[in-house]
Every structure is written in structure tokens, then in C-alpha cells.
């Protein structure tokens, strides 16, 4: 009897492995497509000639762009996963907890009040705001008695809107509204070598997330439970929030605001894989990358040779998926 259940368990694990491989293959295929579309037609044969213009474009523009998309997609997915795990709510993510808006506010304040600030300074500023903003929301969550699956993100979105209004106000007064809008218009068009390297910071953040995965899972079961298992709840919570803030900041500063990705990708993964982070992190990484690659390819093809800002495409597809999730009623059934 035991053997049978064991073998079915094995079969299930095999199935998950298959899915992971399928995701990886999808990412590879999309990557190849992404490398070879664009205003200038590059064929693989061009690359054989090291000196050619095509190779230069490939190395300076296409490849960095691909790396940036993969890192941003994977990173935002992980950020959402950690937030959902820590808040025990499926619909909490950088989009629905004020993280994105807080990071934006940080950049705007640094633009207005600290004009001489270096790029590094801007990064740190934005990071600090993202961290504080998310932290305040998490604190707020602890105060709210009514932890409804839908209520929490609703408060989060409103909280983000209030921060957003503050940002608009400041930008308006300083007359930099247009700069700011252009700045956050998520786009990979400006990603060329020398302009995206900050995104590499997301790599160690993702690795740390993987190391801490089991602890996040335990922390997600509640403070008391975590403490019973000898886990320093506060420390794990803080590490989680710091990772989220690092990822969000690096993505915003290099490619702009990518909404909804952190919300839907972890949910799609957990639909078939459950909530064990060790298992879900690899899937989330590849699904996040595949999702963003897909959106970027659409953005580049639809008005070829021009481009649509990728965050617009992400917002359209992402909000439709989110609406479907809301009305499929899963969230309510599992409350």
C-alpha cells in the first residue's frame, strides 16, 4: 500500500519536473525569438562575422535586453512570491502593497530635493522608500483583524494610490511630471550595455530567497507557529522584505514599473504546485521570465518596427488574468 502511494508521489514529482523543463524550454524559445526581432534584421549568419554591425547591435542591444527581461521577470515573480508567503495572502504583491509606488516616490523625492545625488544615491533612496513603504503596509496588515483574501489587496491598492497621489503632487509642483512619466514608462528600449547592469543585484537576492525558502514557508504559517519551530520570525520577515525591496528597486530603476507580474505568476505556479517555496521558486523564476518575454515580444511585434511600452502590455494581460482569478472564486473558497 505504501509503495503504491510512494510511486504515485514519484509520478507527481516527475510531472512537476516535466513542467519545469517545459517552462525552461519555453523561455529558451522565447529568448531566441526575442534576440532576432527588432528594427534591424539580424540573422544568425551575421553573427559569424565578429566585426559586422549586426554583431555589434546584437551584443550592445539585443543580448542585454534579453538578460534584463529575464532578470526583471524572474525577480518580480520572486518578489511577489515572498510577499504572498509572508503575508499569507494570495493577492499581495509589489503592485498591491504600495511597494512600487513607494519606490517611485523615493526616486521623485531624490530628483526634486537632492538634485546632485549620484546614481548610487538615487538607488539607495528608492530602496529605502520601497522598504519602508512595504514595511508600513505589513505593519498595517497586522493591525487589521479582517484578513480577507480580497480585502487586503484592496487596502494595498488604495495605499499605493495615496502614495501615488503624493508623488504626482510633488512632481507637479516641481514641474517634472513629464520627466517622471517618461522615467517610469516601463521599457526595455533603453536597455543597452552599461545601462542595465544594476539588475544583476537581483541575482544574489534571488539566491538568498532560495536559501531562505523553507524559512519563508514556515514564517508564512504564522508568527506563533514559526516561533514554536524555533524560527526568529522577525528576522525572516525583515530579510524577506529587504529582498523584495532590492528586487523592486533595481527593476524600477532599470526598466520601469512592471505591474501585476509579481501578483499573477506565483499564483499560476501555486495552482499546480502548492505553496512549498523550495519547489515553487524555480518554477516562478522561469514562468516570470517567460511571461515578461512574451509580453515584450508582443510589444515589439505589434507596431513593428516601433514598440509599445512593455508595461502597458503587461498591465493589459496581467489585469485580465487577475480578473479571471478573482472571479473563479478560488480565493474565496480557500478563505
Amino acid at each position, binding site marked *: 500500500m505504501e509503495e503504491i502511494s510512494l510511486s504515485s508521489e514519484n509520478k507527481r514529482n516527475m510531472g512537476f519536473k516535466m513542467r519545469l523543463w517545459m517552462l525552461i524550454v519555453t523561455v529558451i524559445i522565447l529568448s531566441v525569438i526575442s534576440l532576432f526581432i527588432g528594427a534591424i534584421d539580424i540573422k544568425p549568419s551575421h553573427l559569424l562575422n565578429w566585426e559586422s554591425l549586426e554583431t555589434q547591435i546584437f551584443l550592445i542591444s539585443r543580448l542585454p535586453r534579453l538578460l534584463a527581461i529575464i532578470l526583471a521577470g524572474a525577480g518580480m515573480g520572486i518578489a511577489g512570491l515572498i510577499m504572498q508567503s509572508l503575508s499569507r495572502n494570495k493577492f499581495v504583491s509589489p503592485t498591491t502593497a504600495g511597494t512600487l509606488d513607494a519606490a517611485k516616490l523615493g526616486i521623485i523625492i531624490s530628483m526634486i530635493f537632492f538634485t546632485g545625488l549620484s546614481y548610487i544615491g538615487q538607488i539607495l533612496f528608492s530602496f529605502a522608500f520601497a522598504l519602508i513603504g512595504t514595511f508600513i503596509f505589513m505593519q498595517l496588515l497586522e493591525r487589521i483583524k479582517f484578513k480577507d483574501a*480580497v480585502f487586503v489587496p484592496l487596502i494595498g491598492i488604495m495605499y499605493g494610490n*495615496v502614495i501615488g497621489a503624493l508623488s504626482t*503632487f510633488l512632481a507637479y509642483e516641481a514641474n517634472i511630471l513629464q520627466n517622471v512619466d517618461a522615467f517610469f514608462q516601463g521599457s526595455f528600449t533603453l536597455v543597452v550595455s552599461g545601462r542595465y547592469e544594476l539588475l544583476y543585484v537581483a541575482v544574489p537576492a534571488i539566491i538568498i530567497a532560495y536559501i531562505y525558502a523553507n524559512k519563508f514557508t514556515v514564517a508564512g504559517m504564522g508568527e506563533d507557529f514559526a516561533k514554536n519551530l524555533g524560527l526568529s520570525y522577525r528576522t525572516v520577515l525583515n530579510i524577506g522584505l529587504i529582498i523584495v525591496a532590492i528586487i523592486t528597486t533595481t527593476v524600477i530603476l532599470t526598466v520601469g514599473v512592471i505591474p501585476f507580474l509579481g501578483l499573477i505568476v506565483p499564483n499560476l505556479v501555486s495552482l499546480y504546485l502548492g505553496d512549498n517555496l523550495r519547489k515553487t521558486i524555480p518554477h516562478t523564476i522561469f514562468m516570470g521570465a517567460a511571461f515578461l518575454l512574451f509580453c515584450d515580444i508582443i510589444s515589439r511585434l505589434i507596431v513593428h518596427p516601433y514598440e509599445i511600452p512593455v508595461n502597458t502590455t503587461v498591465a493589459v494581460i496581467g*489585469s485580465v488574468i487577475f480578473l479571471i482569478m*478573482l472571479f473563479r472564486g478560488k480565493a*474565496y473558497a480557500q478563505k
Partner: protein
Amino acid sequence: MRKNSTKLIILAVIAIICMLLFAFYNIQGGFSYAFPKRLERMFAMVITGTAIAFASIAFQTVTNNRLLTPSVMGIDSMYEIVQTIIYFALGSTSIFVVSRYLNFGVSIIAMVLFALILYRFLFRADKYPIFLLLLAGMVLGTLLGSLGTFMQVIIDPVEYESLQARLFASFMNVKTELLFLSAGILVLAFLYGSRILHKLDVMALGRDNAMNLGVDYDKMVLRILILSSILIAVSTALVGPITFLGLIVSNLAYQYFATYKHSVLIIGASLISIIALVGGQFLVLHVFNLTTTISVIINFIGGLYFIYLLLKESRKAA
């Protein structure tokens, strides 16, 4: 406890003071230039304020809740989408763009259709909890907004320029050419509205009770949805979307007047709305010397107030 009529008079006096201040305070340069400009803006604010207040309260009565408004459900983003689609499909020289009346008519029809589909889908027999509807409304707003942007980017740049000029409306940039059209529609809507006020009172009792009392509930719901869509279309076309104004003024009116009489509620909410817009704009411009438009401030305060309302509502649900 003061009587509601006294409260209304107090609000009216405050509203008039705000309007006088806005119209006459510290006029510099040529009076003959600045004064008509100010009047135009003020007129637009009064129209928008009243339209939004009316639409919100009527909508809340037929959907039987106090947290949803047409704007929160994304109906004002619909205006932008319709305009974009017209440009996208027919181009800027189309009769649907050139003729203001036709354009407005098409926009309103599309918005009403959208509102009806939304209504049929969302409010079937109390199936969905209010928080779900609110969240869905917000996401829908985002979706429509992004969809609009998406199409705008695809459009031919020249057409886009002309579309931007059409869409970019704010209190500083009132679409004066629409002012009289809007005023006319508003007067008609009000004439009709005043005739159904008492029916709204009955409908607040719920579908079954209202039908028992001889109100053709479903037909009235349809009419009121159409009415509120028209009003929102008027205000969005005139000054652009102001998401939270309806929510703030309707809830303030419920709190301040503590009555179910729609005649009092709607007039009260309209006055609050005028005070918020005209008074707010006056403070922003002349007292704080800011350049911000009032909508940013309304979104900030409205957001906070909305969180407060949500937390209050959640205590009931918990």
C-alpha cells in the same frame, strides 16, 4: 440636532462664499480677460460637481451599497477608450470626431452599454461580496486605462496628437466648447431626476419592497444606470476623470444628513461637491500658491478617506 433644511442652507451659503471668492479674489491684469475665464472654470466645476454627486448617489442606491461609484467601477476610463476607438477605427476626420454632438452621443451610448454589461455581470443576485466588486472595479479601471494607452500608442502620431487634445481635460484646461452642451444635458437630466427622486427613496428599500410598493424596479434600474452614465460622461468629457470625488461627497452626505431622502442627499452632496471643487481650487491657487490641480488633492484625500471607510466596513464584516 439641526434640521436638514438648515444644514442645506448652511452648505449653500458656504458654496456661494467659495464661488464669490473664486470669482473675485485678487484679480490681476485685465478684469475683462480674467473674469470670464474664471467664470468658465467655475461653471465647469459646478456642473461636474453636481453631475458626479447625482450620479454617485443614484448609482449607490440602485446597487445597494455605499462604497461603489461609477468612477470606481471604471466607467470614466470608458470615455477615454471610446474616444480612442473612434480615432483608431475612423480617424480624426470622421464625422464622429468632427461633430461634437455625434461624438458625445456615441460616447454616451458606449458608456451606457458598458455600464449595463457590468451591472448584469457583477450584480446578479448578490453573488459577489462588496470587497470583491471593489477590487474588480479597480483592476478593471487599470485594464481599461492600459488598453486606452495601448491603442493610443498604435495610432498614427498625427491622429494621436489630435486625440490627446481631445482627451487632455482638467480644471485648468476646461473644454469650453462643451460647456453649454454639458449644461444643457445636465439640466435635462436634473429635470428627469427630480421626477424620479421619490422612486429612488422607495428603491432604497430593496427590490422586493420597491416592487410591492408599485415601482417597476428593473426598468427604473436601467433608467438610473443610463442617467448616471450620461452624467459621468458629461463630467469626464468636460474636465477629465476625478475618481474619488463621488465616493467622498456621497459618503459625507450620508454622514452629515443621516436621512434616506434622496432630495436632501443629492442636493447636499452636490453642494459639498461644489464646495470641495471650487473652495479646494481657491485654496490651492490663492492660499497655498500651488500649481497642482485639485484632482490630485482629491485623489490623495479621497484615497485616505476610502481606506477609512473600508476599515470601518470591514469591522462590520469581521
